[in-house]
């Protein structure tokens, strides 16, 4: 495949094709069913939040969507095409994921790490050109890392590493962003800032976002739809307004959760 066509054409999928669609998707871990008959749709410009207790399968769902885990049954369509029909590299130009944990033992600078996001867009022999470097630089600037570009990532704090990982994802410019606990290690300002950057892109360019999180308030603030995994293969799926109620949440988490309204939004907290 010609690398140029792959790089330049990228973003424009027809607006009416959903970014992500699953049909009757079931995934199990060993003998335990994580979710059964899941029919998800993320339209262009939409954000989906995945909530649920520890071990209900939030991470497994994200890994399944990016073909790092097998499905048990059902279909996953990415931009109208069956997931397995994409080659790994093509898929990586459309789908990007922020992993929950990464351990960086091998040295690399912040800039070198962010540039890895350009990897799927480059043909084997090509070097990153000025555009790629500009893309990585912009992503690092968006995460306030411009002063640390030459630092070795093994010397960074947890929050700084998380920002480098988000910048790498931004530099990748996928059409569907999968985020696993994007708020990990981040202070509250960067939690909001990083999700605002991604959400702005998703809305203005007609992309998709699917994020798994423990932070109900973060999900309430940024997501249009919520998938609430309640364990044993059961789940609730619907608009944020419909799903995020004290009753649903209290039941899903097995712990009383209360809601307080303020200026058109609401805050959830354990009560």
């Amino acid at each position, binding site marked *: 495949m010609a690398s140029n066509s792959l790089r330049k054409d990228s973003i424009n999928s027809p607006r009416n094709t959903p970014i992500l669609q699953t049909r009757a998707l079931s995934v199990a871990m060993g003998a335990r069913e994580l979710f059964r008959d899941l029919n998800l749709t993320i339209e262009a410009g939409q954000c989906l939040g995945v909530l649920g207790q520890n071990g209900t399968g939030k991470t497994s769902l994200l890994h399944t969507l*990016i073909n790092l885990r097998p499905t048990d049954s059902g279909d996953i369509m990415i931009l109208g095409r069956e997931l397995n029909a994409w080659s790994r*590299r093509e898929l990586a130009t459309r789908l*990007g994921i922020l992993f929950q944990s*990464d351990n960086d033992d091998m040295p690399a600078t912040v800039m070198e790490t962010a540039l890895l996001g350009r*990897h799927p867009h*480059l043909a084997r022999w090509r070097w990153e050109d000025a555009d790629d470097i500009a893309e990585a630089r912009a992503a690092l600037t968006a995460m306030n890392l411009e002063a640390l570009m030459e630092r070795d990532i093994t010397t960074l704090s947890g929050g700084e590493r998380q920002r480098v990982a988000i910048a790498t994802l931004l530099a990748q410019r996928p059409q569907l962003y999968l985020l696993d606990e994007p708020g990990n290690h981040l202070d509250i300002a960067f939690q909001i800032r990083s999700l605002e950057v991604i959400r702005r892109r998703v809305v203005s360019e007609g992309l998709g976002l699917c994020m798994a999180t423990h932070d109900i308030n973060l999900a309430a603030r940024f997501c249009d739809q919520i998938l609430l995994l309640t364990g044993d293969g059961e789940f609730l799926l619907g608009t944020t307004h419909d799903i995020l109620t004290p009753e649903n949440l209290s039941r899903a988490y097995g712990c009383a959760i209360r809601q307080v309204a303020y200026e058109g939004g609401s805050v959830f907290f354990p009560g």
Partner: protein
Amino acid sequence: MITRHHYILLALLLVLTAFSFLVSFSSGSVDLGPGAVLQQFFNPEAGLQQQVLYELRIPRSVAAFITGGLLALSGVIMQVLLRNPLADPYILGISGGAAVAALATILLGLSGAWVSNAAFGGAMLSILIVFGLARSRYQWSATRLLLTGVVVSAGWGAMINILLTTSSNNSVYSMLFWLMGDLSQSRAGLLSALILLAGFVLMMLQARSLNVLARGDLQAAALGVDVARLKLILYFTASVLTACAVTIAGSIGFVGLVIPHMLRLLGARDHRVLIPASVLLGGSFLMIADSFARSIVAPLQLPVGVVTAIIGVPTFLLILRRSQQRSAE
């Protein structure tokens, strides 16, 4: 990303390589200074000096360069394959298998090509054993591969000790030289040069993927790398490179572990720079070490593996200290 710093580093390494060849040609028990070496290249009359140069010095220098390059390249690959900065070319037991086979042939009173062929066979056997045991149907986990390799290695170690303790004094001496790594009998043929070249080209083709793989299997897969296939390529490439090095010169320690680290500390973390730089520095380093090995106590010769450690340890510690000071600033 390649910067001016990297170009300067590579240029300096090329100069160092040329310099090392010259040093290597001119050291040994027959006195032949760098000037005399250059003179001999253009001397139409074949004399003793020219004979020493062409028949002894040059083949040995070339063998040293190729062995050093093979080991350093293999070290780079093993470190990224196992994502472990402590990995070296021998960590998966390849040198152990080679050693057992080589020592067994020495015990039988054979020498020369018999020993190297046996070493190559032993290395190949060990590669297949570790691969067969570490492979699982689902994935290639670095931890599983590492554990299998280390345990197989320990098994070979036990067999080496059995061979050493049950052999006559005479053969123990040759065995120890083999185990420490020795270039005095080494001749690197065209085949080993081709293996180094092929390994180098193959790894340069994968270099950007190696940068991604260094960030972990999941991240690499998410960025479009076929991780299982890449790891298979890495395992077999590193193994063949190591087997080839061991066949030429026995198990010379230190080069494969330390050369990639030195270069990373000098700023070559991108594999597109690290791979060529490692081959050049590994080759030069081993030529210099070998020059010392044959001149410090001339006319006696030390095993080169001892010298690599004697030179390498302080150099590495110095660079490590410098880089810590720099990052603290």
